[in-house]
């Protein structure tokens, strides 16, 4: 039987899900191993196989979401890179293009960001292309040899090459690749004309630089991972999740490492979209809360918004997505906002005695106090245990037994006693405090974009999401919530639901007269070939769906609209200008007149995956007793009166149509769903739990 494996690495847990063709799922949570990320994946896979009885040979496809690139870029721990650019432009990265936005515009003390590379790692190449790709100054191999020696002298792990107008003519970058690979065959070489052959040198340079910083790490990591999977007997194709909601073959991932920067978040949004699909929610907030971070995204009419760039270190009220802030990386990315807080966030008192939660996280090592792994500081998870939401004996897929006394003691020592309140009260404040931070991520993607969160349904997942969802929703007056089945590992499920996808574009300079099949056919063929390489497609397997786009604009404009091409046949090409004018009118509300020009050709490839339906539950009998696991004291507010004897249910024993009034706690294997008083839960056909206000 065919089985799909999904593996998602988070800051605290690594999640592995096996999906069988009959729709049944098996999930495993394993503490992450940041020093050797593949270890937790391999351990979790081995466990999942053993527990589920699935044979390694049954795994037909393995999809992986990794934070390797993210950590390398954010923490500036990527490979040591030499950066080569055209003579005269060695200061390109140092001059930068930093915007001052919003509040910063009034800040007399604003600081320029540090240049992404020290000067001694930057080299100028004696060469020059024109914008049309003509050689203005030839690159002489003899002069380059000395340069190669100088580059070798700093012992780089990777070399990033970004020459002016290389998108128009890559010959000089190609020659450098050749000469450098002879000189230093073991070093990773990355050329801008391969990574992002589009106009605008700064954006191309930073994209190339980050690719070079991450590629060697990604390559080594995936080699180790593939070897480990093979040792477990899994020889299925390994695919890597990207930031746009697609996957690529592992073989392509090193060269496209920057495309994975937001892969975890993208997988979560894909999961939310999938679980929301059976409902008629037109607007959905995806809310993913794990151990160390939480992410929020918005899905309207089934599609998340995808941007063509992200900003590393970006700032501003749009969740760090203000153009010009941070360093641009040109890669398709699902629009989401992230806050550095989650179940592992540590609660502490600041010098003024105010309770704060995060940004420090206990992570997986030492972990929250209740893990009993050496952590002594109180975390959100400790608070949730004290509040009665978590079952100490069943946590995170039975990865751990929780130590309630340790949680109690940590909160007492570090929060309750200094504040002069009881431990329950302190635990509630920690829980509520992190809810406020969760709300700020949702605020960014809704309120700050002028969207009303009350018109949205909240899809809550991640290990901690369904425990905090109602508290977060209440802050906005959101009335409908959904906790998907296996919500604690939803991202690992979401990545199984994604198509193989790749996009490649190239800047061109075409007029209406150039729009003929003979001109466009070879051009698109080349771009499609590059897209196939990006996707890691070989000639085997099902052929991809090819979508071709032409970026069109009025002569003299800079920003273009991407116009889809039905085909490259003459009749379809004749329609392009009219399509552009209609799109222009729709976008800008003015009539499009005058000559049209074309600035880029793009190819979007997609190989749809088979989506197994989820297994369905047996229908309700009207009796929820079989699912009841007893009662526990749980606290839902600041006052002692907010404590209730609360029904505890086992999620696995619920049936379609079961209704549970709050207060209730529903224990899943990998997450806990909390239904406070005044709310009710209903179970749907596939086991999603719909939470709404009691009527």
């Amino acid at each position, binding site marked *: 039987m065919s089985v799909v494996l999904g593996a998602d690495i988070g800051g605290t847990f690594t999640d592995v899900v096996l999906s069988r063709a009959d729709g049944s799922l098996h999930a495993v949570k394993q503490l992450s191993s940041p020093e050797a990320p593949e270890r937790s994946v391999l351990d979790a896979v081995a466990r999942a196989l053993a527990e589920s009885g699935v044979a390694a040979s049954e795994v037909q496809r393995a999809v992986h979401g990794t934070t390797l690139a993210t950590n390398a870029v954010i923490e500036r721990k990527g490979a040591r890179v030499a950066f080569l650019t055209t*003579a*005269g*432009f*060695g*200061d390109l990265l*140092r*001059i*930068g*293009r*930093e*915007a*001052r*936005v*919003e*509040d910063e*515009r*009034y*800040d*007399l*003390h*604003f*600081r*320029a960001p540090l*240049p992404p590379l*020290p*000067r*001694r790692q930057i080299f100028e190449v004696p060469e*020059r292309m024109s*914008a049309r790709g003509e050689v*203005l100054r030839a690159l002489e191999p003899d002069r380059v040899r000395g340069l190669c020696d100088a580059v070798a002298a700093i012992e780089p792990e990777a070399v990033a090459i970004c020459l*002016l*107008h290389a998108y128009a003519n890559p010959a000089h970058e190609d020659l450098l690749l050749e000469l450098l690979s002879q000189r230093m065959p073991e070093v990773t070489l990355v050329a801008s004309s391969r990574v992002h052959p589009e*106009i*605008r*040198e*700064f*954006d191309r340079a930073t994209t190339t630089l980050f690719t070079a910083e991450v590629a060697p790490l990604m390559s080594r990591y995936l080699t180790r991972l593939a070897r480990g999977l093979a040792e477990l007997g899994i020889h299925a194709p390994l695919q890597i999740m990207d930031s746009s909601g697609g996957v690529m073959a592992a073989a392509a991932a090193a060269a496209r490492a920057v495309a994975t920067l937001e892969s975890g978040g993208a997988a979560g949004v894909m999961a939310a979209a999938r679980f929301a699909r059976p409902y008629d929610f037109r607007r959905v907030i995806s809310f993913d809360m794990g151990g160390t971070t939480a992410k929020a995204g918005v899905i309207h009419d089934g599609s998340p918004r995808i941007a063509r760039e992200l900003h590393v270190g970006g700032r501003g009220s749009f969740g760090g997505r203000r*153009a*010009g802030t941070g360093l641009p990386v040109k890669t398709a990315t699902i629009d989401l906002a992230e806050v550095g807080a989650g179940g592992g966030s540590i609660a502490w008192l600041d010098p003024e005695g105010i309770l704060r939660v995060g940004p420090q996280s206990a992570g997986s090592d030492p972990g929250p106090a209740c893990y009993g792994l050496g952590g002594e500081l109180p975390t959100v998870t400790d608070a949730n245990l004290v509040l009665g939401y978590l079952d100490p004996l069943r946590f995170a897929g039975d990865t751990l037994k929780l130590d309630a006394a340790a949680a109690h003691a940590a909160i007492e020592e570090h929060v309750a006693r200094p504040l002069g309140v009881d431990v329950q009260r302190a635990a509630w404040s920690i829980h509520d405090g992190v809810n406020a931070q969760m709300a700020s991520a949702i605020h960014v993607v809704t*309120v*700050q*974009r*002028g*969207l*009303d*969160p009350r018109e949205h349904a909240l899809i809550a997942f991640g290990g901690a999401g369904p425990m905090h969802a109602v508290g977060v929703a209440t*802050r*906005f*007056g959101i009335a409908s919530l959904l906790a998907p089945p296996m919500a604690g590992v939803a991202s690992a499920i979401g990545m199984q639901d994604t198509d193989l996808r790749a996009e490649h574009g190239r800047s061109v300079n075409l007029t209406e007269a150039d729009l003929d099949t003979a001109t466009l056919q070879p051009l698109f063929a080349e771009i499609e070939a590059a897209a196939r390489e990006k996707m890691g497609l070989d000639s085997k397997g099902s052929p991809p769906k090819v979508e071709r786009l032409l970026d069109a604009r*009025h*002569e*003299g*404009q*800079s*920003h273009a609209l991407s116009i889809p091409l039905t085909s490259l046949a003459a009749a379809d090409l004749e329609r392009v200008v009219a399509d552009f004018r209609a799109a222009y009118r729709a*976008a*800008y*509300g*003015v009539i499009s007149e*005058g000559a049209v020009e074309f600035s880029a050709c793009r190819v979007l490839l997609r190989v749809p995956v088979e989506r197994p339906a989820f297994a369905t539950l047996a229908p309700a009998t009207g009796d929820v007793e079989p699912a009841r696991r007893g009662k526990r004291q749980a606290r839902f507010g600041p006052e002692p009166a907010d404590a209730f004897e609360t029904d505890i249910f086992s999620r696995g024993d619920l049936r379609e149509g079961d209704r549970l009034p709050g207060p209730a706690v529903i224990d899943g294997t990998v997450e806990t769903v909390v239904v406070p008083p005044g709310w009710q839960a209903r179970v749907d056909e596939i086991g999603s739990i719909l939470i709404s206000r009691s009527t």
Partner: protein
Amino acid sequence: MESADSRLDTEILRHALRVAAEEASIVVVKSAHSAMIVEGSDACAGILDRDARLVALSTATNLMHASSLRCTLPAVIEDHPLASMQPGDVFVTNDCFRGGIHANDLLIFRPVFEDAEVAWFTGTLIHVADLGGASAGGIAPSATDVFAEGLQLPPVRLVAGGEPVRDVERILTLNSRTPARVMGDVQALVAGANVAAARMQELSERYGPEALRAAVDRYIEGVERRMRDELARLEPGVYTGEYRIDDDGLELERSPVVRVKVTVGDGRKADGSVHLDFGETDDQALGAINAGFSQALTGAIYSLRCFVDPSIPMNEGCYRPVRVSFRKGSLLDPHPPAACGGRVVAVTAACEAVLEALSHAHPQHASAASSVIHPYTLAGLAGADPWLLLSYDYGGVGARMGSDGPSATGAFFLGGRNVVPQVEPLEARLPIVVESQRLLADSGGAGRWRGGLGLETRIRLLDDTQVAVRNERVRFAPRGRQGGSDGLAGDQYALSEAGSRKPIPAKTDNHRLSRGDVFVLATSGGGGLGDPTERPAEEVGADVVEGYVSPECAERDYGVALNSDRSDVDAEASRQRRASR
């Protein structure tokens, strides 16, 4: 106390107003045609009400135009009473004596109707491609009156009831050296105003006209209250500041001064009000460095806002607690028909003066002077296909108490460097090759806190080219303070193909260069703050390693010696050198 729900409504609505302005500015940039706008610069867009109060302003980057929409709308309403306006009307004007800026900065207004009455206006503003005048692209440095700066437009209809007014379009077209581009830019401005108008209509329908109006009133009152609370925290007193301008490019013997007297509260007690009195500023100039009152107001309000909570949104409430006085006939608020295109010169001097005055009250915010914007125009008008680039670059920001000045970026309201076009798209559309772009070592004024570095750009011209430059801080370099050195003054010249140097005056237009010449623009470095010998030797050493300071300058200005391979500080030699000073 408002309920949680109504607080949320209020917040969503306020963001929606800002997003509407923001969206309009993005639409303008995306659909504009002139190279400067599309490749970098941002557009200003705002929502105003029928009383011409500013409700919300786009928050992208640049604040150079912050006050102009607000100051100009009353002129539109004066000439076209509200009752005469029709749905689908769009107005345009550029009169710098009625709130405008200069000929090329077109201001567009679109009324938004509720129940057949004008309730709101949306406004957009960018520097459009050429609109006549002595210099291609506008801002003619040689202009001695507004008529030499380009076509003057009183408030007139550009679109009437949804139909373009072709007569006005024909006037614009005939007065432009680049007619297609200028009309493209005008269309972009209209598109932006349309998008914001549609958003306002949606909000009005969603919340109801009355509730929307009440919410906007509360928004403006809330901002005013926050502004007053903040101003009440300033140190009460009377402070003065001044800044000297190089010259106006015509009367080179006259270096006019902008002066300000800042009175916080009544001078003894803070009360939430501030008076900025620029009355002692020198008389208006013959050359085009004067600033119309809306631009002068932008500079004044901007500098004051640097001393209050930066998160206060920009709307009418910001203006109410502040009294700003200009003397009619001075550099700030000149008599017609004074030339105003190069108004950034006067406005940035006003900013420096206010910062100096307030740094007496708040020494922790002391700063040295900064470079300003260095605009230049390259134009080839002889061929069949005339081309034009109006661009600019930035120099070093002055050092501030506690931090070095950033390099090659906009100071004050000019925003960050992201608004300067990248090289490749410029070369793709214009007959130029940018040969190099380098930070200028040693251009930042030495000090405990170092000034930011200037930038040198070399552009090879592939066509016979008319050059215009409007450089400032090239005679008097940005001033250092408290023992810090001045930055390095800016410069502009050309190199012939043979390599000989051809000087170019600092403020000039229609300067002819030949195909093959290289145009060189060096922006000034920011001033330093504090005694350079108090800068820790390792910070000086790091500057040397990064190439921001030369080893010679490290020894001469900072008293820091480097080891033999110049990779690190020679601590002992530096200690002795500094001790012997």
